[in-house]
């Protein structure tokens, strides 16, 4: 089995142009960072009401996807789906790459990135952010240990893989809890926020793994049994249904209670309704499900990849909705009163991202891309040929 892994050649002109593309975006992202750092956050479009902008959407999306990307390896190691064992190196490595990209954006969007190390010197252990510092670094260590055992100490794989799986659940719970524990924000103060983040991470992480596997195998001329793609598709279907279930339960609960129905009405019909209905519901849930359940598209690789792209776009829309609607929705400090002030109390926050924020975010994505394509060139992460076991037939529409 070990011999089956082979690094890609990485000598083609398209490989180098991809390298150059990612490199350029990393450089542009670095430029965007220095531009913001030098001029202050005044050059972004963030305000005192929407203080976390587009960079946070990119950062959190990548971090959420990171834990989801480990799913494939967990399926093999923890849940005994042996046919995914051949992808577990890829899966753990991708998780690290995504985490690195996301963390870079998160850290570079600080108001004072020069003081970043203060988080190591002065720690407030009540803060969800401090916990996340440990969760992120711990997750990277876990993934490295997992990779190490996979490559050299097979007998510890189960241990390392199970630990990494447990950690990824805690990690995404932590990421979701950044929002879930904030009592001040009715939009996301909920015990179900963290589980929803986990479901979203599973669907988007699986979708990204699927896309990268298909694209990498195709462009390097490797063979992959279509049954494996169908198996991944079924996982994606399951996770997308899970996301749908959780958001329906959450909306139902908040619509049911008279003290929270204002928030639910805002989500469904307020200023961010397009982001919610169009981005989260249609692109993130309905469209992928439709495509995957229709026999014509659901069984073709093209259709499945399209649904996966939708799923990732839906994930980003979900994070963007949590962030933007959550912050823009005004505080109800004096219930029963209409509130106005020079500080824009009582009015919905307006935010439209600026170019420099987009470039910073794309820079983070490019870091992930760069790490990934360098990884598959320099490490033996992927099998020469991905085979499915005889007699295994995943469900198909």
């Amino acid at each position: 089995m070990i011999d089956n892994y082979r690094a890609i050649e990485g000598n083609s002109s398209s490989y180098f142009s991809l390298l150059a593309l990612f490199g350029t975006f990393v450089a542009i992202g670095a430029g965007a960072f220095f531009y913001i750092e030098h001029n202050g956050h005044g050059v972004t479009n963030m305000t005192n009401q929407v203080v976390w902008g587009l960079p946070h959407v990119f950062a959190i999306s990548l971090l959420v996807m990171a834990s989801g990307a480990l799913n494939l390896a967990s399926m093999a190691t923890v849940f005994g789906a042996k046919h995914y064992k051949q992808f577990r190196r890829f899966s753990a490595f991708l998780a690290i790459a995504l985490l690195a990209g996301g963390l870079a954006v998160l850290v570079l969007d600080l108001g004072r990135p020069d003081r970043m190390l203060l988080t190591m010197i002065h720690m407030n252990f009540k803060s969800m952010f401090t916990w996340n510092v440990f969760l992120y670094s711990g997750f990277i260590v876990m993934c490295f240990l997992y990779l190490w055992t996979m490559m050299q100490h097979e007998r510890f794989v189960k241990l390392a893989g199970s630990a990494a799986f447990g950690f990824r659940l805690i990690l995404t719970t932590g990421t979701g809890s950044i929002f879930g524990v904030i009592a001040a924000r009715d939009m996301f103060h909920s015990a179900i926020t963290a589980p929803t983040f986990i479901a979203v991470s599973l669907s988007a992480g699986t979708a990204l793994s699927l896309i990268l596997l298909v694209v990498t195998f195709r462009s390097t001329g490797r063979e992959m049994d279509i049954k494996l793609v169908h198996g991944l598709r079924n996982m994606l279907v399951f996770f997308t249904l899970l996301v749908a279930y959780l958001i329906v339960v959450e909306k139902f609960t908040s619509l049911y209670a008279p003290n929270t129905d204002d928030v639910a009405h805002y989500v469904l019909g307020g200023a961010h309704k397009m982001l919610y209905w169009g981005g989260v519901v249609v692109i993130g849930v309905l469209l992928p499900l439709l495509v995957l359940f229709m026999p014509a598209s659901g069984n073709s690789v093209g259709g499945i990849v399209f649904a996966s792209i939708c799923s990732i776009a839906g994930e980003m829309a979900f994070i963007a909705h949590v962030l933007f609607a959550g912050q823009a929705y005004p505080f109800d400090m004096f219930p029963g009163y209409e509130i106005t002030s020079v500080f824009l109390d009582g009015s919905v926050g307006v935010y439209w991202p600026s170019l420099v924020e987009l470039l910073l975010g794309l820079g983070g994505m490019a870091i992930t891309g760069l790490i990934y394509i360098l990884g598959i060139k320099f490490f033996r992460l992927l099998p020469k040929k991905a085979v499915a076991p005889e007699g295994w037939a995943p469900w198909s529409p």
Partner: protein
Amino acid sequence: MTMDRRSVLGLGGAAAAGVMLAPGLHLIAAPNKTEADGNKRWAMLIDVNKCASDCTACTSACRTENNVPMFGDPTRDIHWIRKVELKDKSGRRPSVSLPVLCNHCEEPPCVHVCPTEASFVRKDGIVLVDKHRCIGCRYCMIACPYKARSLVYHKTKLPEGGNPDVPIRGSGVVEKCTFCVHRVDDGKLPACVEACNREGHGAMLFGDLNDPESEIAKRIKSVPTTTVRKDLGLEPHVHYQGL
């Protein structure tokens, strides 16, 4: 003169030794020292009925005292204290106008979420931002239900007629009302309270809740008062009367 110099040097030397041996201890000898008192609980009581809707004396006094910058962009202007107009949705209660500022909670969510302990509660209950330590992550702004905090989006300059005793702002850090901590430590009232009294409204009362003889403690005992977002259990130290 020589004696003078010597005694000053001696004091300095003692202070230096103190710095090295026990930080904080050396200051006991100095007569001109003040320190936050852990037995105090600074609080404010705002009588909504006395607050005039067209009066902004408190907000402008705050701006002058603390060099609070205006950038000419309402989405980014910084307000440590702002006047808020309330209109009853059912039309039964009269409209009111009142100042809203940092509530200096006993259990401040901003302090809970701050990763570097830049936001903290001082011994005497004043919630502050250590601007030397803030990394500008803005999590506190997400957590505060009073919208009391602002990020400094642009570089600032000491304005004409500004107060040189209060620092201006470095961009990229979060700031908010300090209860005029520099004045309180000096035995004075916060600038907003003083301005309100000067205008003759007397709508703002400031004092030590832990002192049963203080006017604010007596008032809060004798008249019905409330706090904003009581349901969150943050125990704010800004109380409102007549709301």
